[in-house]
């Protein structure tokens, strides 16, 4: 059994925050190419608020995600804030009352998460949004459940899928979000929201 216990989830989320902090310039630059250049700041503001909310001893596996979700929903800077808030909320709900995240719980969270984001943002795969990283990660986790892959390895597979999805956005002309206003001008660089999703899964291990 190598399911992720609350403490491990907390570490994961903390590593994610650090990664985003490190890459704030690059993310901002990506949003400048395709949007309005506030993505990095929006992320960092929400995440720094999340840090203040973490309990050092999370009650269940979902608790760190719950803090993360609330921080995004409370901050809501731009489009990404509430969407990430609702995405992480599915992770919180999946882990609620559980002593650890199994591969199956992670797959549930990712499936529900991407469904919520797609519904709220009316975005499909291929629209050059965070969904382009969320969807393949969810698929990878679903497959991992089928294949009985343990959680840690399942997350590495999800990270690979998310990164590939994020990379694919470099060659997509956006149809949703602010990037849709700039069209071809954004080609050649990935969507910042999708990159953030890849960074999230990559922070797991």
């Amino acid at each position, binding site marked *: 059994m190598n399911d992720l216990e609350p403490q491990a989830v907390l570490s994961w989320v903390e590593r994610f925050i650090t990664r985003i902090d490190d890459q704030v310039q690059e993310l901002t630059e990506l949003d400048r190419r395709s949007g309005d250049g506030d993505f990095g700041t929006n992320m960092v503001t929400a995440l720094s608020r999340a840090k203040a909310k973490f309990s050092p001893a999370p009650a269940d596996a979902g608790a760190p995600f719950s803090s993360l979700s609330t921080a995004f*929903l409370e901050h*809501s*800077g731009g489009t990404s804030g*509430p969407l990430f*808030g*609702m995405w992480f909320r599915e992770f919180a709900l999946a882990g609620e009352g559980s002593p650890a995240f199994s591969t199956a719980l992670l797959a549930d969270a990712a499936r529900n998460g991407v469904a919520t984001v797609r519904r*709220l943002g*009316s975005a499909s795969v291929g629209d050059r949004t965070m969904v382009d990283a969320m969807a393949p990660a969810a698929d990878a986790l679903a497959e991992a459940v089928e294949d009985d892959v343990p959680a840690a390895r399942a997350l590495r597979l999800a990270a690979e899928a998310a990164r590939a999805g994020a990379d694919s956005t470099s060659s997509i002309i956006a149809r949703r979000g602010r990037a849709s206003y700039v069209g071809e001008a954004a080609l050649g660089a990935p969507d910042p929201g999708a990159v953030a999703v890849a960074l999230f899964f990559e922070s797991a291990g």
Partner: protein
Amino acid sequence: MAAHQLVNDPQELVGEALEGLELSQRGRLRWNRDPSFVIRADDRRPYKVGVLSGGGSGHEPLHTGFVGYGMLDAAVPGAVFASPTAIQIQAATEAVDDGRGVVHVVKNYTGDVLNFTIAAEISGAIRIETVLVDDDLATDTSVEGGPGRRGTAAVVAVEKICGAAAERGADLSTVAALGRRVAGNARTMSLALRACTHPGQSVPSFDLEVGQVEFGVGIHGERGVRKIPVAPADELVAALTGPVADDLGLNRGDAVFVIVNGLGSTHQLELLAAYRQVTRLLDARGVTVARQLVGSYVTALDMAGCSVTLIRADEELVGLWDDPVRTAALTW
């Protein structure tokens, strides 16, 4: 330091204004600081449907100025021209729910819709109906899957009618249906004569050459759909009113609510003179004015310009319009 503005730290302006609002409406309004929303502090009739709205700040008196008897139970202000957060909206929704549910009056902007939708989802057991206000004809581009028409001045009428119905004791779906009837029968067109200046900035959000009017603007300082040459007021007002009346398909014998709305720094003298011209244009079409509002109700900071809103009226809506209302910005 910013030109022609009375500001401290621009980031603090909204909070300072909310504090001032609460102080100036003692016993009538309460400002919940965190999460931020403004709620009635008067003796609210218990067990009524809640009516809630919100959106970016900078449009005052909208929405906070319409909190009170017969209109909104609470308003949720975002930063200047930015949506409030889902958590703010959720907290306000919980605060106004008596168990009979809450109507969310939402102007159609991506951020507002997103955050109100999320708030509704995370508000769990509370029954919520959303009334989307999308009256701005300038954005009626019918793009498949596009964001649709923006919500502008018609929101005042939606809030007034929903508030009156809720005060009468109507149930959730009735209040929402009335709001949708108002919103669905409302169209607005706006023009700017000078752009607005954001708090702390020293230059307007866009430049207008001398002799140019920005036609089809929204309420966030963005450019309009086209520039037209400056013309006498009566011609400009006709350019606003005609398309609105046409789009509503108004016929001889129809009655309308009229809102002639100032966008910020256009003087009441100009708005009143504009209203006179609207009545003439409607007269010529055989359309009667059921009720009207003339003033600066939905502003875009200090933008100079105005909008004309027409809303198809019927006897039931006129009755609700006439119901008493007691808020900071609208009282009768």
